[in-house]
């Protein structure tokens, strides 16, 4: 059984005539890294909001491990583009927010915190205020805050889009490193085709209007360095094919 099952989901915002998403069907397994790409405003974030439980499908259903999703909970973590870190808490307290809310205070959590701080290069910033950190460091805190909870599904809503190239590349490595240790199901939204090719085992393309999944591509170039591939005809063809699928939304 798939970890996440989306069946015939349509979604329409209250007061809107047209649906934002139509006929979404998707199965995702644990220990998979999935990237969602598509044009702006096509409904990628809406899809994550439905999976998180912030919104509910107009028709169809979304199930996690066979159970219908009806509200947000720790089993589906979310990293937002603006991170939504709590500025009144220190780095460590931000990361420990989830375990504290779940009343997990055992030594294992402190071990996880120490490991995550080391893995994300935040050990020296443990007691720093959030507003003292750069954008890249804040994004590391946002990732660590989710990974300490070990959610079976982790969603990233264009989390790295505001970062410069070098910092983004660091974040890719950190994400892959954390994912390999937790083996959860990651669903990341991006606009960047190269980011999708590097990070996505599966690339889910959303297009058309209303938004629907036009293709789910197994990515043979997952974790491969683009600079080594740029001359390879098969890579170029695959990249062009994805770009073609993203295209421009029709009938808008």
């Amino acid at each position: 059984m798939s970890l996440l099952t989306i069946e015939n989901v349509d979604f329409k915002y209250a007061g809107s005539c047209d649906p934002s998403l139509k006929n979404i069907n998707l199965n995702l397994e644990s220990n998979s890294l999935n990237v969602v790409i598509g044009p702006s405003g096509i409904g990628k974030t809406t899809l994550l909001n439905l999976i998180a439980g912030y919104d509910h499908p107009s028709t169809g259903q979304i199930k996690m491990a066979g159970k219908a999703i009806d509200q947000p909970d720790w089993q589906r973590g979310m990293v937002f583009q603006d991170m939504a870190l709590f500025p009144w808490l220190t780095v460590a307290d931000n990361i420990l927010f989830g375990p504290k809310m779940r009343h997990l205070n055992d030594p294992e959590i402190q071990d996880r915190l120490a490991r995550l701080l080391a893995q994300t290069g935040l050990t020296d910033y443990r007691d720093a205020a959030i507003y003292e950190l750069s954008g890249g460091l804040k994004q590391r805190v946002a990732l660590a805050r989710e990974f300490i909870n070990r959610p079976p599904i982790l969603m990233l809503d264009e989390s790295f889009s505001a970062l410069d190239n070098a910092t983004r590349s660091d974040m890719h490595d950190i994400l892959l490193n954390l994912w390999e240790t937790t083996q959860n199901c990651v669903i990341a939204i991006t606009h960047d085709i190269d980011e999708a090719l590097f990070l996505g085992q599966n690339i889910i393309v959303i297009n058309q209007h209303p938004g629907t999944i036009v293709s789910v591509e197994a990515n043979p170039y997952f974790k491969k360095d683009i600079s080594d591939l740029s001359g390879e005809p098969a890579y170029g063809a695959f990249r062009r094919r994805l770009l073609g699928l993203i295209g421009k939304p029709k009938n808008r």
Partner: protein
Amino acid sequence: MQKKRRLRSFNISLATTAVIIILWSTVTSLKLISPVLLPSPLRVGQTFINLCLVGYNGTLLYQHYLITLGRLLVAVVLAIVIGIPLGLLSGYVPTVKAVVDPIVQFIRPIPPLAYYTLLILWLGIGETSKVTLLFLAALPPIYLACFDAVVKINREYIRGASSLGADQRQIFFHVVFPAALPDVFTGVRSAVGVAYTTIVSAEMFAASAGIGWMIVDASHYLKSDVMFVGIIVLGVTGVVLDWMIKLVENRVVHWRGKF
């Protein structure tokens, strides 16, 4: 750099105060305005010392001061204790808003003096009516600041917290409350200001002590020097109170303006 700028700003404020006092001295020493209307700074200083040592109407200045400050503090503390949870809950729970909001919105625009006589009839001429008047004046600014703070909270704070495992109660105490704190302090500062401006009204009727009463009583006998002392004491206290709240705010809401 910031310290230097702050020092410069302080020096400018000091110089402005000095210029006002010099102008005041010049006008009074040249007798351009009658001393009954505008006593000299020296005269006001002498009256201040006299009020400290001899008192006004048998009550020393510090006693008048403590009575006024006591009324103000009790009213503001009550407004804080009741207004903050009420405002935050109104912003967070629609049912609470439906019950509380119309009442506060009704009280808010009414000048306190309009219902003061009613309060005296209902609650008597003692401290209760005065404190209630100040409380009713201080409550709306705190309530509204807290309500608005919750309404404008970054929605992703709440969504993020729920995806980290927080329930509604935990979100209220661990996310909504701290996120609203900067605006809560703004509300408290406004409330102290409004209560402060109402203090003279509160002590205008059925009082025999307090700085506000002293000012009103002195006005009946054209004792402008006493009125000036009262006004200066109120003004300085207002500035000090605001500075103290800002000091606490800077320590508690250390992230304000930095995120």
